[in-house]
């Protein structure tokens, strides 16, 4: 008699799949109730039961994989882009990450971003507010030129006022010259590219 053990396995899988399930994810098929204990062995219902367990496992796996891809997409979307000193042009080594962002934005039409420009501490504070604006604008232009509507972005600048690294050396300055990406709408509607 293997039913009690199967029952336990099914319960565990069911619990796992429910807990892995997010509010916005499709409901995986619920496993059927276990056969009555007093009934004799019935190979058809056993097979059906095992199939439903496999389906639940597969759905849980797919959902976990989807979540992993969404998280990766969110990380890509919010990854910072760095700039050269006193420069607002997009560095060639920053284009791949921006192109990845473009793919995610294409797949996620409800996502809106705020592009926040920052500078290092050198130079005029007022000028650096403008320089940060220009960096945010450069990123916006990249997105627009890639076919993403500029209505999906707002830009602002913190100038030199919000350093990422509070030190005064070349390495810190290089990290502080950046545009940050804040998701201001559609945070729960991020679709990894190549899906849906």
């Amino acid at each position, binding site marked *: 008699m293997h039913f009690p053990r199967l029952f336990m396995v099914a319960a565990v899988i069911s619990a796992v799949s429910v807990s892995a399930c997010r509010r916005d994810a499709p409901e995986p098929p619920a496993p059927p109730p276990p056969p009555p204990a007093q009934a004799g062995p019935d190979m058809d219902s056993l097979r059906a039961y095992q199939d439903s367990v496999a389906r639940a496992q597969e759905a849980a796996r797919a959902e976990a994989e989807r979540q992993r891809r969404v998280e990766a997409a969110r990380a890509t979307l919010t990854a910072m882009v760095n700039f050269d000193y*006193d*420069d*607002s042009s997009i560095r060639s080594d920053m284009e791949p990450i921006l192109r990845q962002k473009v793919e995610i934005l294409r797949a996620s039409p409800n996502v809106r971003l705020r592009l926040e*420009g920052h500078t290092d*501490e*050198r*130079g*005029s*504070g*007022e*000028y650096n*507010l*403008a320089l*940060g*604006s*220009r960096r*945010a*604008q450069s990123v*916006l232009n990249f997105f627009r030129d890639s076919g993403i509507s*500029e209505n999906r972005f*707002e*830009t*602002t*600048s*913190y100038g030199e*006022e*919000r*350093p990422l690294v509070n030190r*005064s050396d070349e390495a810190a300055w290089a990290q502080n010259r950046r545009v940050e990406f804040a998701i201001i709408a559609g945070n729960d509607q991020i679709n990894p590219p190549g899906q849906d």
Partner: protein
Amino acid sequence: MIGPRISPGPGSHSSPRRAAGALAAFVAVALPLLSLAAPAKAQVVEDRFPGVSLELISEGTRALPFAIQPFAAPPGREDLAQRAENIAARNLRYSNRFQVLDSLPSSITRGSEVDYALWDQVGAAFLLTGRIEVSGNRVELVTEVHDVIYRERRGQGRFALPGVDTPEFRMAVHAASDAAVEWATGEPGMAASRIVFSRLGEGGNRELWVVDSDGENLRRLTNHGNLALTPAWSPDGRRIAFTSFVSGLPRIYELDLATNRERQVPAPRSGDYITPAYAPDGQTLAFAITGSSGRSGLYTYNIGRECCFTTLIESRNEDLSPTFSPDGRRIAFMSNRLGVGAPQIYLMPAGGGQAEILSPYRFDRRGYYSSPDWSPRGDRVAYYGRIDRIGWHQILISEVGRGNRILQLTPNQSGNNEDPSWAPDGRHLVFTNGSGRGGATSLRIVDAVTGNTRTLVSGMDVKYPDWSPSLARLVTAVDDR
């Protein structure tokens, strides 16, 4: 034999510039000889940059000896008189116009009449007298300035004194001091004024703080818990316009100092609203909007009538940090139109139009200039910058209309000197000083005529100081006779 303490006159402080020999030396001379503040001598320190020299505004003024007769008071109020006298003496010293003779023995005065022969013998050119008068709850300071050489009274004033430990007490004495400067020289003082600035605090936030011109009464003005930047006084001294990120995006606010109420300049379109400045009418604010889909520029808004956005200048470049000439006819501002990384200072008509460059631009130098402030006297614009691509920032003055001659006020070895703002007397400037790494750590005041420099506040991360207009009329009733 009278033995008055001789307080240092202009030029007797040691300073790096003097060490560098850029100034004619002043000689501290014992009484009865007078020290003569020689006119500042121009010296071109950068032969590579013709027209820019490390020098001072040439006024050809003498530091006249100004004696202070011990202030008098009714019995029991002597401490009041002493306090007022000390504040006034320091103010006269900070004016950098006089050699101050104070802390004289009270026995020097005989009766109520001014003994001109005595003060002549002491070596004074001017004499300040003061006495505390009390009637009921009302306490007043009565001051007079006498011309010792011509033996005549030059002015008299009566100043209501609030409680001795209040900021208003000090401000009333500041107003009396400025009146004394004006009676003696015919020019305005700057003691009755304050400096507002942006100070770094908890969590990387910046709030606006304010301090009196003599470094007293430091206090916080805003509580935004975010970034409050680039404050600017209204011409009546009652309001301060500034940029704040409190809403999440940089917007312009106006703080009413009497009511502590704030109102926001509306933001009809996207972009960062920064660097506000008042027009002389006190109602029109000029400011920059940057990062608005490539449309940046300078705009005005009438905050008094709460209407009427106008565009002064708009382009794909950044134009920011406007400052009005005192007659309201022109604006100085900074712009990067000659290239990213090389902002320059420009002048243009206040309504917009053709802009002309003011800063010492050289095509291959990548000079960098920022933060203009138009002098209340109208003939000079201060800003800061560096002539080369590298190097520390220094305080510069362009003499508008006199061939736009450029003076460098701070010596090359003194660190990063930034964000100059004129005092209401048109000769002192407040600016930030730092090492160039991390934020500036002090506010300093320089006299553009003598080069004397003093520290206003230190030991804090400070930015964007703005010197108020004269606040004398706001805080005390002056009764000229």
